[in-house]
Every structure is written in structure tokens, then in C-alpha cells.
């Protein structure tokens, strides 16, 4: 079992990068040292007993020197509280949790598909893949151009970047997965990593299966304990003709796309 810490992390910065999207940088040596792309931290969003449940956030980026970032959108009370957190505040974190993305030593051409806030764990993965000199192509989808996070950075960093917005304000108008088949034909990826709404992940699983390309998806579930004990966050996967139950927190959050029994 990889190292998991129950620790206090100091806030270094909390930057609003779009209307309701924040990038929060923490300092904690142990969590920063042990974390890998695809893992998450389970955060207590308020002091005292304001919130019973922690909220899980993918680790967005490792900055070096003991700091790391999460990226989040304000969707409820917990994230609203987090948006008001100031530098020098301290929060209670458990992490890093989860299996993380598996990086295949042999794969050179790697395709990442991001829908909305799915970009959060994928930036950490991009950093890792580029440091290993892989050829990376990114499909970046969002509701509108304001929410196309990292479009400029990715254009500079990766081999190919294709964009889609729901409202057509930039790139293809429609779901980012619309661009997947032609990207596969053109880029010939040996591995696909995806994160985003579950409907998007299900479509990717189908297309990857048709082209016989291994794909890993990062799932999301409401969590209570976050450490594998309470069985709140389950999903079903196929294993040798049977369906078995897995915990998204520690058996995941990354799974082989072909194994998942989709709820939708």
C-alpha cells in the first residue's frame, strides 16, 4: 500500500482562474513527495464540524519544493467554503489516495481526453508524460471558451491540441468526443487517458474498444471515509464473466475503460 497521510497542509495561494473555478496551492512535504498523477486528496473544507464529509479533489499539479495544487469549481457548500480560503490558512488533508494512472513503458503516442473539470488530474499527467519525452496529444473540451483551461499552455507544450466547446465559441461545436475517431486515425495513440463527465467516459470506452486501444478513465464518486472502509463510493467492473464491486477511492479512481459497467 502506498503512503497515505492524515495531515495539515498550509495554503500557499488560492487563485480564481475563471468565473467559478479556483486553483488552490498547498504545502505539505509528505503528500507532495508521494503523489502521482490520478491520485487525489480528501479535504476538510471547513473548520470544526461545519461539514461532516470531506471533499475529494484530484491532485492537479506538483510544483516541487513540497507544494501541490488542486483545481476546483464551486458547486456546493464545501467548494464555496474552499473558494474563500486564504494563504496561510491550514486545512486538514488525507492523501495521496488512489491508484493513479498507469503509464505504460512502451507507449510513445499518448492521447488525453478532457471534459470540463476533467482537466484537473490530466495536467499532472501531462507534466509527467512530457518529462518522460512521450508524444502527447490532447483533446480539450469545455462548455465555452472561458472554461477552456490551459488551452494556451497545452498548445505550446504538447504535440497536438484539438478543442471543442458546447456553444461553439471556440473549436468544434459539440462534445469533445466527436473529435476522437478522427484523432485516433491521425495520431495513432497507443494509450488513451480520459477524465470528465461519465457520459463522455462511456463514449470514449466504446470508441477505444472499437479501435482496440487501451484506455484508462478517472472516475468520480461522492465519498465518505475516502480510505476504502465505508463502501459509499462504489462502481461495478467486469472481471472474468462476473461483475464485481470496486471502491472508486482506493481501488480507483483510475480504471481500465473496458472493465467498467456503466451506470448510465
Amino acid at each position, binding site marked *: 500500500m502506498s503512503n497515505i497521510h*492524515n495531515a495539515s497542509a498550509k495554503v500557499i495561494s488560492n487563485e480564481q482562474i475563471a468565473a467559478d473555478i479556483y486553483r488552490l496551492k498547498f504545502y505539505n512535504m509528505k503528500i507532495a513527495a508521494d503523489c502521482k498523477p490520478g491520485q487525489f486528496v480528501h479535504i476538510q473544507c471547513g473548520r470544526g*464540524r461545519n461539514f461532516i464529509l470531506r471533499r475529494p479533489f484530484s491532485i492537479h499539479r506538483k510544483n516541487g519544493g513540497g507544494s501541490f495544487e488542486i483545481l476546483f469549481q464551486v458547486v456546493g457548500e464545501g467548494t464555496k467554503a474552499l473558494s474563500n480560503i486564504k494563504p496561510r490558512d491550514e486545512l486538514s488533508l488525507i492523501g495521496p489516495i488512489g491508484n493513479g494512472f498507469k503509464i505504460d513503458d512502451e507507449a510513445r503516442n499518448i492521447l488525453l481526453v478532457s471534459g470540463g473539470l476533467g482537466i484537473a488530474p490530466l495536467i499532472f499527467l501531462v507534466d509527467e508524460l512530457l518529462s518522460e519525452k512521450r508524444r502527447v496529444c490532447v483533446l480539450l473540451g469545455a462548455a465555452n471558451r472561458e472554461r477552456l483551461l490551459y488551452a494556451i499552455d497545452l498548445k505550446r507544450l504538447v504535440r497536438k491540441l484539438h478543442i471543442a466547446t458546447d456553444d461553439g465559441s471556440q473549436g468544434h461545436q459539440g462534445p469533445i468526443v466527436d473529435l476522437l475517431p478522427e484523432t485516433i486515425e491521425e495520431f495513432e495513440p497507443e494509450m488513451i487517458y480520459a477524465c470528465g463527465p461519465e457520459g463522455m467516459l462511456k463514449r470514449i470506452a466504446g470508441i477505444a474498444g472499437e479501435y482496440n486501444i487501451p484506455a484508462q478513465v478517472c472516475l468520480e464518486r461522492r465519498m465518505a471515509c475516502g480510505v476504502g*472502509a465505508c463502501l459509499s463510493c*462504489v462502481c461495478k467492473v467486469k472481471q472474468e464473466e462476473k461483475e464485481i464491486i470496486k471502491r472508486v477511492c482506493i481501488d480507483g479512481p483510475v480504471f481500465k475503460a473496458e472493465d467498467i459497467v456503466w451506470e448510465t
Partner: protein
Amino acid sequence: MKNPIMTASGTFGSGREYVPFVNLNKLGALVVKSVTLNERSGNSCPRICETPSGILNSIGLQNSGIERFIAEEIPFLSSFDMPLIVNVAGESVEEYARVCALLEDVRGVSGIELNISCPNVKKGGMLFGQDPKMATEIVVECKKTTKIPLIVKLTPNIADNSIIAREVENAGADAVSLINTLMGMAIDIETFKPMLGNITGGLSGPAIRPVAVRMVWEVAKAVSIPVIGMGGISSARDAIEFFLVGAQAVAIGTANFIDPAATMNIVDELDSFLNEKGFKSIKEIIGQVKA
């Protein structure tokens, strides 16, 4: 028991996942997640939702069944020396008795907690714990199949637990524990759908503590067997309320989600409290509420 702090069933798995955060040997007792005769896959997601000062859960008693529990969890649990209490659930009296029979041959089980907040499928789904006859029948039948001490875990979804508590005491129960979760429901007003896949669920956490304290008080006055109190305890101060109304021990559940080391903190805080106030042991304050 080294101390009167236990884990509440369902919040701690079999303890494995808490090893990075908790010294299991420091627990007064480890109460594991409910085991049933057969494997259960549990309810559809979402299985959890936050409510003011609490959570609603409808996990659905997911577990691998008693045989796999004995084969896979018992070896792990035997490597520790804290008392082990196995929580048992069932759909019929026979199922409870059969699981107890299987545990009888297992070494290292200090107690069995009978989770009677389960629907009796043979009686239209009424909770075993809501009917004195059904509750006592479980105790009587389980006493036939095991000598392991039996703790009956009572449900709060009932008007007066002191009657059931007395009845199960008469039937031979060695202790009672309470409260289990309160039945509740929450709706997502954006989608008009219930927040839980199972529609209703059990409420736990600080919100239920006053209900638990009151019920422990009532039951402790009604029986002479030990009473284990639980329901929304997140600090030693909360636990002390339960000791004062008569609990001999307490269990910590939802608080483990706030802080996985909650049990350890509470053991230490309780020690500090006793030292500060000049009490040599928790026994000096049990039942000392001035009411």
C-alpha cells in the same frame, strides 16, 4: 477492554484501511462492518449524502458473506490484540443463528453485535428491532448456537426502546448497544430526485446525538446489563454525556470520516479529562447524571 472506546459498525470496515491512521491495538474494541450469511452487493449509488451536522447513508449492508469474512478478515484481525466484536445482520432469524453458529468455531471473537435494525423479510419488512417478539426470538435462537457474548444493537426508529431492551435482557442478551441510524431522506431540488439511490437512508452524525443520549438514558434505567452508547460522538466531551447517562462504553462512527484518527484522539482526550477532574477511572462518572 483497555478503554471504553469502540468503533461503530459500518464506519471502520475490518480496520485494514485505518491502519495508516490508527493503532488498532489502542482501541477498547474493534466492531467490524455487518456480516451476513450470504454475500450482499448493497444498494445503488449514490449511497451517501451530507445533511446539516450529519450524513444519510444507504450502503445496503454490502459484504462478502460470513465464509469469506472468516477466511479473509479473521486472519488479519487476529494479528491484533484488541477485542474483536463481529456485527451480524440478517433477513430472518435463521440467518442470524447460522452466522452465530459459524462464528462459534472461530478463535478470537470477543463478542457478537446483533444488528436488528434489519427488515424481517418474512414479516413484511418490519424491522426486527421494532418488535419485542422478533428481537427476543433472535437472541434465543442465537444463544442456542453460540456461547460468544451477544450484544443487541437497538434501532431508534421506535417509540420506546426500554421495553425491547428489557425483553432482550430477559432472553439472555449480554449487553445492548444503541443507537443505530435514524431513518431519513433528502431530495435534490434541481433534479427533483432523492439524493440517495435507495431513496431513504440512515441519518448519523452530531445531529442525532441528543436522540441517542436520551435513548441511552432511558435504556440504562431499564436494564442491568451493560449499555454501549453511540450516535454522533465526535469528541471526548460528547462521549462523557453518554457515560453520565449510564453507558459503560461508547462507539465512534461518523466522526471517523471527519478525522480517521478520531478514535485515538478521543481515547487520549478522555484520559486527560479524567486526570484533570481527579477521577481514577471512567466508572466514577457512569450513570452520575443528576436527573
